[in-house]
């Protein structure tokens, strides 16, 4: 009985805290509506009252989720600041809201937690090599895509037997346990032995030792390994389509449309190309920007 009373107290305290939080975000927006026209709050005034954009612009800060261990897209170095194409895209969107780099709080969002972080509001949006698919659309919304990746194959440079996905039958292919690439391999290459490890980096040693014949995942990840290791090579054209989108709260259509507009503007004026060339473009050719999917 005693512990139950304790639990009730905790829940009551949490409810209070939550109420306090939500009123924190509501009130400034109302104040802002009243103080519209104030020169310093100009950015917020550009957006429809009460929209996510107006709230973020008013707050002057934003929380963005990305991966911290994905070379070329989102990778955190010793300085603790993530770098890569995903990060540049996120900065570009934040800049449109009038928020500079200092106003961005980066949160690590691994594949397992992305939908949860969006649903619980722990992040405002996520740019994290996040493939748009129907399962995920049941829980969140996607803007974009801003890039089309595809699953590909990495082998030793000296391997002449595997030139593309058609040569995978009868080989051992390393990938990550419980990943989308693993699922693709199991479904589309039944004659291939799938060898699952914990991370892609762990596949490299067995590849060199000849314990596996190839490593398979999104071409952008493999390109990162090939760029760092002269003895490795990416083989053949990508054999799946992985459109990377920006994850945000389900049914925030206004915010989604606005991000899509922002992406299209960045395609037009070259900011997208610039972001690519500064990051993943250092090892990969510059692609055409993909058409935004306004589903």
């Amino acid at each position, binding site marked *: 009985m005693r512990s139950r009373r304790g639990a009730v107290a905790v829940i009551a305290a949490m409810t209070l805290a939550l109420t306090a939080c939500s009123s924190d975000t509501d009130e400034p927006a109302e104040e802002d509506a009243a103080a519209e026209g104030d020169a310093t709050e100009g950015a917020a005034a550009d957006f429809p009252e009460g929209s996510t954009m107006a709230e973020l612009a008013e707050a002057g800060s934003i929380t963005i989720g990305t991966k911290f261990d994905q070379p070329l897209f989102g990778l955190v170095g010793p300085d603790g600041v993530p770098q890569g194409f995903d990060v540049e895209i996120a900065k570009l969107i934040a800049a449109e809201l009038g928020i500079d780099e200092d106003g961005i709080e980066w949160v690590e969002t691994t594949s397992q937690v992305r939908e949860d972080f969006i649903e619980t509001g722990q992040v405002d949006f996520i740019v994290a090599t996040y493939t748009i698919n129907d399962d995920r659309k049941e829980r969140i919304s996607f803007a974009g895509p801003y890039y089309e990746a595809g699953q590909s194959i990495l082998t030793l440079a000296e391997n002449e037997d595997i030139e593309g996905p058609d040569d995978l039958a009868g080989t051992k292919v390393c990938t990550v346990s419980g990943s989308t690439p693993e699922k693709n391999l199991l479904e589309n290459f039944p004659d291939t032995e799938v060898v699952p490890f914990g991370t892609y980096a762990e596949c490299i040693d067995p590849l060199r030792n000849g*314990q596996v014949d190839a490593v398979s995942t999104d071409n952008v990840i493999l390109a990162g390994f090939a760029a760092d290791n002269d003895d490795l090579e990416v083989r053949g054209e990508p054999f799946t389509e992985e459109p990377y989108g920006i994850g945000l709260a389900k049914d925030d259509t206004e915010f989604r449309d606005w991000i899509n507009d922002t992406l299209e503007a960045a395609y037009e004026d070259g900011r997208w190309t610039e972001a690519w060339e500064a990051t993943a473009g250092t090892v990969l050719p510059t692609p055409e920007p993909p058409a935004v999917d306004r589903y």
Partner: protein
Amino acid sequence: MDVIVDNLPTYLQGFATTLRLTLYSGALALVAGVLLAALRVSPLRPLRALSAVYVEVLRNTPLTLVFFGLVFVAPRFGLITPLGFWTAVICLSAYTAAFVSEAVRSGINSVGVGQAEAARAIGLTFGQTLGEVVLPQAVRSVIPPLINVFIALAKNTSVAAGFAVVELMATGRRLGVANAADGLWVLVGVAVFYLLLTIPLGLVAGAVERKVAFSR
């Protein structure tokens, strides 16, 4: 719930691998552990030291590192292991043997010193003393801790999921990707299958304990 029922055959495949890992590793660890315990109480000092070093090193190393050592480090020294099931059995049994050895040693210690002294006095060798006088008595007090070790082993097999073995845990991860919207239920299913393995082990422990219990 449906996601568990719909994927029952897939679950059973993973469960079968977990079961095989547990049985093979358990049997090997039992044999190796009893041998290590025998070395530990042997009259020869170098053998005692050898066993002590093995047990202390393995018992105090995280299982993941044992796997890491055999799967990633050993190949760098020219020892290329076959990836998958048998490498996992080697790692799991090498690790569990240390715990079996400690359980057996504690059982041996629980047998009165007078028993071993009396055995020696009537001219039995070390092997006879251990095998015919001390171990049969030790077994009674060893069963419960030993079952604990095997329950831990059954759960520890999940570490193999990160090292190229598709057992219950890795199967759960695969089902998780295929059923992204039901991730929670997929894991509930995995937990249920582990319980199917561990709870009977616990029941066996209880039954054996009642059967062999005696007052000293």
